[in-house]
């Protein structure tokens, strides 16, 4: 019986990959530890080793095949005495994807986008939108530089900075030691002296080491100096839960940073917002915390194919119009809210979905106007509930639109425990579209 070699998952979020290169051919003897192939994911190129011994009986995909799903057999090794006819080669579902990232079906945007209907659009992943935003701003302003762990030679731990070192060189795309407190402080000092740093945290979990400089040094400097010392600096990176990476790598810091005057906090959902808001953030003269989401990096969205696409900071976006309930969300939860809204439509409930986009300053006007129309509110977020973004949204609504409410506002958020590793517990802990549906039904009596 031949042993199947499966397409391995090389990262917690990998769903498929490209078989870049075979390093063995049919008939080769292999033993445990031998490298069989090079696999490219959207983050990196990795080698696949065998743990079995035997003869390569068949290679099931040609080198260069893209879009091979995790756990698909890619080769067969005959074990001791095994003789079996090689099966025919399998055509990959998609062999020539221009972009290496996974296109995932996205609930269609039912509301007018920020651009004109006649504007040409292209499909692009959130990852590449962020990269393009940085590249354009690096081109535009000599004072902009990017600094962080693995941002240069490695091309970014999540490949967000791919290609930037080649174009801009080591002076402006700088690999740091693993020293978050130090390089966040260094970059803030450089910003005080007039440069415009982009600081990438490999994840915002690690920015805890640096939070003193983000808050005490960057956010407060302008005020403490009576308006003399400004810091035009962007702290960016993935925030919140990825997939199966456990409690210390899955923390949503939205409410932490949004609590601090002097900071602006942005948490985009789609590629167009990621690009337009990151460009705005880099140009902004204030310190900005830009919260990305690893689970969105590989998702493709339409983005206007125009030069210099910049969006205003502090404006929420109505992603879907509705009349019965307002759902607020940011970052990845916007996708969940849109899925929930679609399901609710089937139940006869018309949900309006507001993508907050910027958490500080919060666009309270858009929220209030929506609630005045729908008279109901569900505030969804990925992080913990207590003292959270949803709590703030509800406080604003209760304060400014109390008389318009027909039911108590409700929060949807992560369960009040550190994020567990086990797949079932993780899914139980994180808010799902079904939780939003349930919350809406509770206050709509349906």
């Amino acid at each position: 019986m031949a042993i199947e070699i499966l397409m391995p998952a090389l990262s917690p979020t990998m769903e498929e990959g490209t078989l870049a290169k075979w390093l063995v051919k049919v008939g080769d003897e292999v033993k445990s530890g031998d490298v069989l192939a090079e696999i490219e994911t959207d983050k990196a190129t990795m080698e696949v080793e065998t743990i079995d011994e035997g003869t390569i009986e068949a290679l099931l995909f040609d080198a260069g095949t893209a879009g091979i799903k995790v756990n698909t057999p890619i080769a067969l090794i005959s074990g001791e005495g095994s003789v079996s006819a090689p099966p025919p080669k399998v055509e990959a579902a998609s062999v020539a994807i221009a972009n290496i990232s996974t296109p995932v079906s996205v609930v269609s945007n039912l509301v007018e986008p920020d651009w004109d209907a006649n504007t040409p659009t292209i499909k692009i992943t959130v990852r590449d939108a962020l990269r393009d935003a940085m590249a354009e701003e690096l081109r535009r302003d000599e004072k902009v530089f990017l600094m962080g762990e693995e941002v240069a030679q490695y091309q970014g731990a999540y490949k967000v900075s791919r290609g930037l070192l080649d174009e801009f060189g080591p002076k402006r795309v700088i690999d740091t030691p693993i020293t978050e407190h130090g390089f966040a402080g260094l970059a803030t000092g450089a910003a005080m002296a007039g440069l415009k740093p982009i600081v990438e945290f490999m994840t915002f979990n690690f920015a805890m080491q640096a939070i003193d400089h983000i808050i005490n040094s960057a956010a407060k400097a302008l005020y403490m100096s009576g308006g003399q010392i400004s810091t035009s600096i962007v702290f960016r990176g993935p925030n919140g839960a990825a997939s199966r990476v456990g409690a210390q790598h899955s923390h949503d810091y939205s409410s932490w940073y949004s609590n601090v005057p002097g900071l602006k906090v942005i948490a985009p959902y789609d590629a167009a917002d990621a690009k337009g808001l990151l460009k705005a953030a880099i140009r902004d003269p204030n310190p900005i915390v830009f919260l990305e989401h690893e689970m969105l990096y590989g998702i493709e969205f339409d983005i206007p194919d125009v030069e210099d696409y910049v969006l205003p900071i502090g404006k929420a976006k109505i992603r879907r119009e509705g009349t019965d309930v307002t759902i607020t969300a940011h970052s990845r939860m916007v996708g969940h809210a849109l899925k929930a809204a679609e399901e609710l439509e089937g139940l006869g409930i018309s949900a309006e979905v507001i993508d907050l986009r910027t958490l500080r300053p919060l666009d309270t006007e858009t929220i209030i106007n929506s609630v005045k129309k729908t008279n109901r509110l569900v505030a969804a977020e990925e992080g913990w509930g207590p003292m959270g973004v949803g709590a703030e949204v509800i406080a604003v609504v209760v304060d400014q639109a109390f008389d318009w409410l027909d039911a108590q506002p409700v929060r949807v958020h992560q369960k009040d425990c550190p994020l567990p590793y086990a797949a079932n517990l993780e899914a139980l802990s994180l808010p799902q579209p079904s939780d939003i549906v349930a919350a809406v039904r509770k206050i709509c009596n349906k």
Partner: protein
Amino acid sequence: MAAKKGASGKDAKIIDNSLSNIASREELLEYYRQMLLIRRFEEKAGQLYGMGLIAGFCHLYIGQEAVVVGVTAAQNETDSIITGYRDHGHMLVAGISAREIMAELTGRATGCSRGKGGSMHMFSQEKKFYGGHGIVGAQVALGTGLAFAHQYNNDNGVSLAYFGDGAANQGQVYESFNMASLWKLPVVYIIENNQYAMGTAIDRHSSEVELFKRGISFEIIGEAVDGMDVVAVKEAASRAIDHARSGKGPYLLEMKTYRYRGHSMSDPAKYRPKDEPKHMRETRDPIDHIRNIGLEKGIFTEDDLKIIDKEVKEIVADAAEFAQTSPEPDASQLMTDIYL
């Protein structure tokens, strides 16, 4: 020569024989003037604090004057300065007016941070003085960033980052040392070792009390300096600044110094022997040092000094008057300077 002995007050010697060869009469008088200005300013600040006109935390620089005066004498106008919360002296020597500083201490609209910063949070973009930081050790990473900007802009400037012996135990200091040395950043780290991290004596807070050695594993040259001798300080600082400016990377100076007062105004400093400050004041005072040598060697006369004493007294009296008569910030200023 830079002294390699500590300013413990017991065995350190005043190195006086080369003074007149190193510093001109004008330079010595200027050092005297600046140190005296800091001393009188701080005494006045202490007095106003006692009267309730200055509030919060107020850390006086009395005793340590030679450090910032000596270093500043070695730098030029392209260089940046950053320090911690014991910052009044650094600001005065950077050329920020005594009026603006004192008015900030009293929380007035005319203060250099318009009354919003207070003693520990003062800045002057114009004088390249980047604070005035209340978080112990933060200025070391920020100061390394100022050096990064000098290198990035290729403007030939050097960053002078001051911190205390207490801050020398913060992790970010070593994160900064590593990057500064790795990237050859033009920064001079100046440890003002006044022997006490608030109330904890150095031999109770540091496994290695010779702090100039703290850069060794980062390949940063370190030097111990008699921080009570302004000329020794200036000479060492010149070496360090030249090194940094020439592209060779960071340099570490440990200034052995002493503060006469408590850590802050609210600290009675009962953790040190009663006669220690007295002894230091009588035998190692940086201002007396210059005065005595200059007079002994006939470099200047009592009359020369009297002119300076009078000038300094007037500046401080004027600053105190200004700081007490200036208006408080208008209520409308509460919500400004949060965002640009």
